[in-house]
């Protein structure tokens, strides 16, 4: 298995928010992390991206201990797409995407031909080339989210983490972002973990779904197997119907 998360626990001070999480992902898989607020999904991303030290457990990428790496080394393996909030308004799209090359740049931050090529490719693949010289403040929410995706692609890592990339976006932009993620995962063999609240988007775009509750993984399997009415009711304390469309993904709707 390419990415192994082994009995990982994380704490904020005295409070333990992840309790011995075990997950393994093959290269090129998209895993959706779903579950109620405060279930530990975002905490897991923070540990994987190195901004929170776990209190116990291990994370390995093809045998390499991710937790022992320096920020620079880790950023060559793991890229993060955060929510597009509080971005530096005066930066241009190209400037922001170029910062994805930080783990490869010298301390002066002058990009070389190899870096420019990676930035160009990331801009092209996210349809941002026409917007390259626009300032971030002039972009819509969906475009800003695409900039952060392009920045992560420019980082050229095998692992991509997304933290609620579709929150605040309208339907079209939600589908657009997730289609891009799916496409890159297939084409580049990216291993993707994404925190997502919309269960239907998770079912539609993820290969497997991990259902979190109270800092543990209740179930991890294909969407049809995890997203059952009983289990959703138990975790979210909300009764739902799960509809099955022929040859389609399960559809979760609120019960009457």
């Amino acid at each position, binding site marked *: 298995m390419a990415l192994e998360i082994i009995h990982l626990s994380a704490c904020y001070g005295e409070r333990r928010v992840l309790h011995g999480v075990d997950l393994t992902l093959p290269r090129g898989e998209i895993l959706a992390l779903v579950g109620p607020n405060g279930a530990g999904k975002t905490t897991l991303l923070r540990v994987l*991206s*190195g901004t929170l030290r776990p209190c116990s457990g291990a994370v390995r990428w093809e045998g390499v201990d991710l937790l022992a790496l320096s*920020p620079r080394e*880790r*950023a060559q393996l793991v890229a993060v797409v*955060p929510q597009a909030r509080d*971005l530096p308004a*005066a930066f241009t799209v190209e400037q922001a995407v170029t*910062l994805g090359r930080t783990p490869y740049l010298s301390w002066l931050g002058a990009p070389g031909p190899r870096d420019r090529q990676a930035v160009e490719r990331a801009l092209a693949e996210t349809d941002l080339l026409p917007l390259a010289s626009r300032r971030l403040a002039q972009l819509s929410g969906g475009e800003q989210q695409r900039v952060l995706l392009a920045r992560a692609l420019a980082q050229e890592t095998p692992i991509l983490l997304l933290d609620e990339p579709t929150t605040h976006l309208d339907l079209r932009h939600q589908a657009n972002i997730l289609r891009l993620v799916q496409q890159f995962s297939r084409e580049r063999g990216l291993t993707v973990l994404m925190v997502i609240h919309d269960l239907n988007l998770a079912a539609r775009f993820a290969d497997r779904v991990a259902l979190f509750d109270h800092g543990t993984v209740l179930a991890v399997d294909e969407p049809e197997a995890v997203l059952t009415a009983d289990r959703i009711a138990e975790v979210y304390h909300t009764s739902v119907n799960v509809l099955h469309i022929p040859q389609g993904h399960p559809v979760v709707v609120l019960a009457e």
Partner: protein
Amino acid sequence: MSSRWLRALTLNIVLLILAAGLSVAVGAVTIPLKDLGRLLWHAVRGLPAPQDVPSYYATIVFDLRLPHAALVLLAGSALGSSGAAYQGVFRNPLADPYLLGVASGAGLGAVVALSLAWPQTQGGMFGLPAAAFLGAVVTVALVYALARVDGTVPATTLILAGVAVGALATALTSFLMLQSEGTLRRAMTYLMGGAPLGGWAPVLAMLPYWLVGQAVLLASGHALNVLQFGEEQAQQLGLHAQRAKTVILAAASLTTAAAVAFAGIIGFIGLVVPHIVRLLWGEDYRWEIPLSLLGGGTALLLSDLLARTLLAPQTLPVGIVTALFGAPFFLWVLQRTKRQAA
């Protein structure tokens, strides 16, 4: 892209040279630019002063005006680049060595050192910026700790903390000055924005600190760019964010301390100059730092020129001139920030 920045850099270098030339030429005795040029050209080639230029011109230029202009240039450029760095680290357009209280803290450090022993030697003078640096570091750490709310530094708490800590440092400075002996008291008044020390000794004493601080700030442009996305994203992009912030704050405080130790507490250069740079040329700290460095030198040279000539023969404290322009600018920025936040 980068040719636009090179043009900006060239323009700022030209402006700085013009301001420096003006500063050396204009004063109680105004030296014609032609004579000034020939004096400097002869000096550069190691020749004695030309015969047809009045001999007291040479004395004025080399013993009075040139060291004064050099001191003002170094101090202004220090305030400009450190202001840009503070604004970058705090991600706050209102950060400035003066408003953060760092300048006052550096002043207190310098006054404590002066009240222990007035430097009689060049060696003693080298110690002055070190003492100012200590004061500056303590201040910036205190203000940062007071202003920090959940990992961010809101404008309101930052300014409140800066003003409060700065006021405390200023009060302690005034107390020490009033306690001190007559000669010492007069010598200390420059710290409160009076005329800076004269001669080449303070310039030489400031230079090593200035060079180290500016070198680090100039090399920090890329890190500052990454930090604009916040500490967490900076870390995820491969930057050792906490370490980078600490190094940049230390360098900005060292640069500020070098300026304050010999030119006194001067406000608003560090606020206004980086702002104008951003308005004219956009946001990229790899260029913003050098442009603010050059622009800060130009701005303080021109302010100093006004301070010396507005009410001549009386010389105004240069801090009054910078505040006269800077304070309304500050209010304008505050207004803009408020509107953007709304």
